[in-house]
């Protein structure tokens, strides 16, 4: 657990991803408790563990990229607020589950499975022949 918190530098990729997912959820939880838009420092104070300010900033920007939080400029820094829409939070929770469960595809039927190395060109050729009708050809171009 402690390793994962400080993971950005060390650790293998899956462990780091899971760690990040947990951190994002923690940051989001803190933001949701906030009475209003909060600064990154405010968030950092209320997080468990001694996270660096830059780490909190990184997580906040990542959450922002995922539309889970919104930010407003205030002076030279940002004030952050949890996005109010439920879909964003659901997406984040789903993301955490998908990242955390290596075998999710064995349980949930995924629309497409992983491609083998040579599948991509094969698929492009098939797609070309599938799009041979005029309507699709228009959209392709």
């Amino acid at each position, binding site marked *: 657990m402690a390793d994962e918190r400080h993971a950005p530098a060390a650790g293998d990729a899956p462990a780091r991803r899971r760690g990040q997912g947990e951190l994002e959820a923690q940051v989001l939880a803190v933001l949701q408790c906030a009475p209003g838009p909060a600064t990154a420092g405010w968030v950092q104070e209320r997080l468990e563990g001694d996270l660096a300010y830059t780490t909190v900033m990184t997580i906040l920007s990542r959450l922002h*990229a*995922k*539309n889970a939080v919104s930010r407003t400029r205030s002076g030279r820094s940002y004030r952050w607020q949890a996005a109010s829409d*439920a*879909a*964003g*939070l*659901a*997406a984040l*929770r*789903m*993301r*955490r*589950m*998908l990242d*955390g*469960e290596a*075998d*999710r595809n*064995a*349980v*949930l*039927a*995924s*629309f*497409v*499975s*992983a*491609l*083998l*190395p*040579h*599948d*991509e060109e*094969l*698929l*492009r050729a*098939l*797609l070309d*022949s*599938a*799009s041979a*009708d005029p309507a*699709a050809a228009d*959209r392709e171009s």
Partner: protein
Amino acid sequence: MGFFVFLPLILPLTAVPIARLTGQHLHPRGAARLMTVISAVMAVCSVLCLGLIGVVGTAQIPGNPLPDSWSDPEVRAALPYHETVGTAAMWLLALVLVACLRTAVRHVRVRSRARRALNGLPKVSGPGGDLAVLPDHSPYAYALPGSPGRVVVSTGMLDGLAEDEREALLAHERAHLVHRHHRYLLTTQLAANVNPFLRPLQEAVAFSAERWADEESAQAVGDRRITARAVARAALVSRAVPAPGFAAFAAPAPAPGPVPRRVAALLGPVPSSRNWPPAKTPAGLAALVAAVGTAASALCALNAAVALLVVLKAVTPL
């Protein structure tokens, strides 16, 4: 019982041809059902035989459920028993149990986590209410079984598809839910845990379930090409290339993966609706071999169980 008690452990090999030839002359619906039944029966027989071998083989170890009169020389002559084999069977049985439990727990966990993730998402009533569109750049689409089942699609996936292709994708996922494909997947996964020889069947069933949903989707949108495009484009958008494992190196002549095969099948003719392949084709022969293997497996297991019961009855003073 004798040697026959070991047969169900290797008879699943008779199902390998049908797993390989799946999709030929057979509607994916029929293929999925047939292979699921075969693997379920063979798995049950394998467990039964492992149990019998174990019980008989460990007869002299304290705690064995067999009665004391078991050590009667006549009984020993009637049933083959070997302590090493019996102990090995018991260990295997324990391993099988652990593996099956892990699979079951994983299923429950993934499904409940996915369900919890969707908690708080407003549910729309009416058609399309089962759809949950999640704002996420990474493309994914899942059918989440349950009552009611839900279709989870990320905006990343939807953005990569044209309007008609989105419809095909939704129809595909709904087909998974309507026909309860997760049960086929779980059954064959448990079976493959029981007997590794059933793994080809598991993969074939997983593929058939996808093909089945593809066919349903093609029927729903009315054009096989649309579904073909949807599958191909979704795969290219996701471009989930597996970590270079040995699958990449083991195949010198690259065989197409499941996704291109699905697209190619959709671009080909409509599969015949029959549920059993015609007799005089390789697929028909393979189905026959698998059916005979399953029947033999069931017979052997039954025979061994009955033999044990008869002997037990004979030696137990009642």
